[in-house]
């Protein structure tokens, strides 16, 4: 899989995770690592890039135990991006399934 494609898919997954549950950096990194076996150190730069694009907003949450945590929440722009991404992903998956199933007549 090309790096660019992989990067796009990881971005989509991060958007989905945060859209479902606003979370701190470590929680997102750990979930991504556990589910996709993505190298942990690639997740933060993605979080940062998406925040810069204003797809996420952050706020600091105080914790009873330990230091305050930076929590990422999806913005309306982020939701729009997620929706588009999911649509494109589903179309792509359908096309791939057709090709791999030997069905070349779609479209």
């Amino acid at each position, binding site marked *: 899989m090309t790096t660019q494609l992989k990067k796009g898919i990881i971005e989509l997954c991060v958007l989905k995770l945060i859209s479902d549950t606003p979370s701190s950096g470590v929680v997102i990194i750990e979930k991504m690592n556990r589910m996709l076996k993505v190298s942990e*150190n690639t997740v933060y730069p993605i979080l940062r890039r998406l925040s810069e694009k204003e797809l996420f907003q952050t706020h600091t949450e105080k914790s009873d135990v330990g230091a305050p945590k930076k929590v990422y929440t999806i913005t309306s722009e982020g939701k729009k991006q997620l929706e588009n991404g999911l649509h494109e992903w589903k179309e792509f998956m359908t096309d791939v399934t057709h090709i791999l199933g030997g069905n070349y007549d779609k479209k």
Partner: protein
Amino acid sequence: MTKSNYLERLKQLLDEYNMIESHKEDIIKDYDTLWQEYQELNMMDMDIVEKLGHPEVIIDSLTEGFTKKEILNKRKKQSSQQKFIALTPFIALFMFFGLGFLVENGFMYAWVSFLLIPMSAIILQGPSNIIQKLTALSPFIAIILYIPILGFYFDLWHPGWLVFLLTAILGGLSHPKLFYRIFISGGLLLTSIIYLILEVWMNLGSLMITESIQLPYSTFVFLPVILILLWIWFSQIIKNGIPYLILLLLSTFIFLFLSIQYDLWLIAWLVFFSVPIYAIVRHTKKEEKLIALMPLISTILFMLIGYFFNGWAFGWLVYLFIPMVAIIKGK
């Protein structure tokens, strides 16, 4: 690696990029928070570094879209150097007319100012290695030393021509092995000194080869060094070196013959250009060949126009070919 070491190293790496301070602070703050969160999970420093990625590893993805300050400065420097090189034809023109009109017999020397064009390009954008830079500059240094200073001013056309061996002496210094550096450069330098002593101070007279060709006896002092050079080249079985040796020998003999027999000291030295011309034709990239050859071609044209058509006053125009070709052929 402790947290403070980690963050400090990350900051150092971020500082190498043209990123605004608030961006950098944000990243450092985020990594500080991430580190704390992992610490709260009772992770060891080593494991946290593993999780977050070593600063050297993550820096590329953190600085996507940003350029290193070093590269920006280099680009800025290159741009001002290119501006200066583009201006040199005009600076040379001012110098040419200034010297020509203000100094008595100034036009005899003023054309040298046009050598500023190729020389500035070599100094500013030529090889970074100092010996290679000096080797590339040496034909022009030799021209300046030979024609206006040794030739016109001191009337030392002979043995002033020895300055043209400068290219070979400096070229020898580029050899990777000390032994050969000493033999090639040291040998040529020592021979030139012995030749000077024999020819100038001891004045040995000439050897009549035929009725029309006479060579100073002292010329034969070059024979041992030529034999040593031959031995070096053959012993290394460097076939590439042999054409240079043949060219250097041929150039020296043609130069001496034309100069002594026909009194062409002022023009015959151009044959020494055969060595750098051969090197450029052989080793320079196809698209850069003409650009690299232009300073030499311009000088040859200028000297021929000046000498045979007495065109010293207008022949300098050929030096404008250098920037013209560079603009047309350049990227």
